[in-house]
């Protein structure tokens, strides 16, 4: 990999060069969710005091919101083939888009390290059970480095890996579900009979399910830009089928198991109830593939693009950089309940408004059009010294609202940020900085590789 790779990656992908199939994309998205954290999301809902019915309804509301946001924010990538870091320029300004890109990359780093540590923890527990060997740090280092090496091969290879691993993961998860059913039985009726709550714990769970998807929402264009864009219907179905059934299965298993066994950690569950080496092998396969593919899809890709845009790094080094920072943030702290939920709430408060602003900007204000030349080389999106004041002020207002109601951070942050941006942009910025694409007669032109600023830098 050379420096050219990352620069070329930021250019729009023309329709004729988009070759990612809908099925492969759906599987890649599904593989992001087949991981330990999805199980913990469901288990956490029951631990928060909900019965299974309430937890299920909260999950479905959260997932429905996630899918709508994913579809809307992925439109620039789907239609125009641009990545997130470019999509952010009209919303936040050419310079401050780099800062918001970093805000997206930070939770990706934390998730990367956290998923690696969670995977290492699982591998270590199985090595304890099988051989009596206990050293989570060795597993952690090996597991993390392997992911860095694989990610250095590039986005296409990573998407290939995640889509293939999704098939294996589905088989494994079905085997695990059968085993869990054999051990506990699914006494759904008794789980639903509990009193639970439709109050604060219910809305906390809805928020948690929105927060878990919000990071992928912000950079949904990064993946969807490779997808064939010949059918809007297939595009919506890809997101729906990739996201909803997988989370329902994973989190649903977590809900059922915690309600009948009281064990909320999937790793503890496997260790306590694994009867033979084959089940251990299946569970190990699940942990390795699940954590691997989640990190590839949701954490390494967005962070690498941000470093490429910010520091002009080649892809291979962006992978090493992401890997190094993923360790430096002390991810083992997030394995504590307090650390995990504080982290989710804080990044929900920051990313919710960013997602809301990006959607309002493209869908409502610009009605699906960008000045493609200006995205890469013009000064139209410089606004005031490279900063779009509406975007930054709306982000501050939205994040403050999210942090003020920290338990509902992603909901309040997204709504307040989006509305603030709409009014600030419509009644202040447009008058001061006219936008050519807002004219009804404006026709979008494609940016070819040879006439963009980035292409010149590459050459």
């Amino acid at each position, binding site marked *: 990999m050379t*420096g050219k790779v990352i620069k070329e990656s930021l250019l729009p992908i023309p329709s004729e060069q988009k070759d990612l199939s809908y099925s492969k994309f759906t599987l890649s998205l599904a593989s992001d969710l087949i991981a330990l954290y999805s199980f913990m999301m469901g288990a956490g809902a029951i631990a928060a005091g909900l019965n299974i019915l309430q937890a299920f309804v909260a999950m479905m509301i959260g997932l429905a919101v996630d899918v709508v946001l994913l579809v809307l924010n992925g439109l620039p990538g789907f239609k125009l083939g641009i990545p997130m870091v470019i999509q952010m320029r009209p919303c936040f300004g050419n310079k401050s888009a780099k800062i918001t890109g970093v805000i997206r990359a930070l939770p990706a780093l934390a998730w990367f390290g956290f998923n690696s540590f969670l995977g290492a923890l699982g591998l270590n527990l199985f090595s304890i*059970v*099988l051989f009596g060997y206990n*050293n989570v740090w060795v597993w952690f*280092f090996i597991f993390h480095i392997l992911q860095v090496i694989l990610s250095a091969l590039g986005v296409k290879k990573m998407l290939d890996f995640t889509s293939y691993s999704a098939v294996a993961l589905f088989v494994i998860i079905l085997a695990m579900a059968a085993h869990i059913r054999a051990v506990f039985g699914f006494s759904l009726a008794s789980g639903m009979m509990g009193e639970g709550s439709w109050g604060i714990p219910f809305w906390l769970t809805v928020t948690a399910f929105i927060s878990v998807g919000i990071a992928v929402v912000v950079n949904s264009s990064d993946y969807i830009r490779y997808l064939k864009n010949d059918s809007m219907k297939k595009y919506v179905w890809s997101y729906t089928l990739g996201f909803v059934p997988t989370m329902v299965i994973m989190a649903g298993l977590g809900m059922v198991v915690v309600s009948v066994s009281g064990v909320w950690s999937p790793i503890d569950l496997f260790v306590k109830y694994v009867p033979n080496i084959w089940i251990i092998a299946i569970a190990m396969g699940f942990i390795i593939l699940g954590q691997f593919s989640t990190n590839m899809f949701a954490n390494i890709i967005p962070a690498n693009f941000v470093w490429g845009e910010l520091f002009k790094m080649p892809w291979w*080094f962006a992978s090493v*950089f992401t890997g*190094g920072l993923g360790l430096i943030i002390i991810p*083992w702290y*997030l394995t504590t309940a307090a650390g995990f939920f504080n982290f989710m709430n804080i990044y929900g408060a920051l990313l919710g408004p960013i997602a809301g602003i990006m959607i309002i900007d493209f869908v409502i204000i610009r009605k699906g059009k960008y000045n493609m030349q200006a995205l890469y080389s013009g000064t139209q999106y410089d606004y005031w010294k490279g900063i779009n004041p509406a975007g930054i002020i709306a982000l501050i207002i939205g994040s403050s609202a999210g942090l003020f109601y920290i338990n509902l951070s992603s909901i309040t942050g997204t709504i307040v940020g989006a509305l603030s941006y709409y009014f600030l942009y419509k009644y202040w910025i447009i008058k001061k900085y006219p936008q050519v694409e807002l004219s009804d007669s404006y026709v979008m032109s494609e940016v070819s590789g040879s006439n963009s600023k980035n292409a010149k830098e590459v050459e």
Partner: protein
Amino acid sequence: MKIKTISIICILMLLLLYLGNFAFAISNLTVDINDKYTIGESVIVKITSSEEIKDPSNVKITIEKPNGSTIESIPRQEKWNSNNECFDIYTVDYIGNYKINVTNILTGAEESTTFNSLMFTRGSTIVYILSFIILIASLVFWKAKKA
């Protein structure tokens, strides 16, 4: 006659002493853990008894967390355990001092120990330093290649 009585008493005393020692041996449990763990790390609570542990479910482990809450668990035996050993795994989820109490329900024998959980211990520090070294080395390599 006197000698005979004294001999019987002596034998009985020796027998009592032997049985007493045997009873003491039954009640002997040891709990093997480290002094320090990084938060999030796995603690193997390894229990060794002076006699065979036929059924680990007769051994009860109680862990007192730094926040005051307690959890109870039952250990397990694997192939790598000898027949007088059993173990349980606990994942450290709070920073502070933990106390582990182990009880053999059959004999009433008890043993307790403590450990401390921290943000960094030796293993986590080594991983941390290694990641810094790799990051800086690749940065130097990239800059050199660029130049």
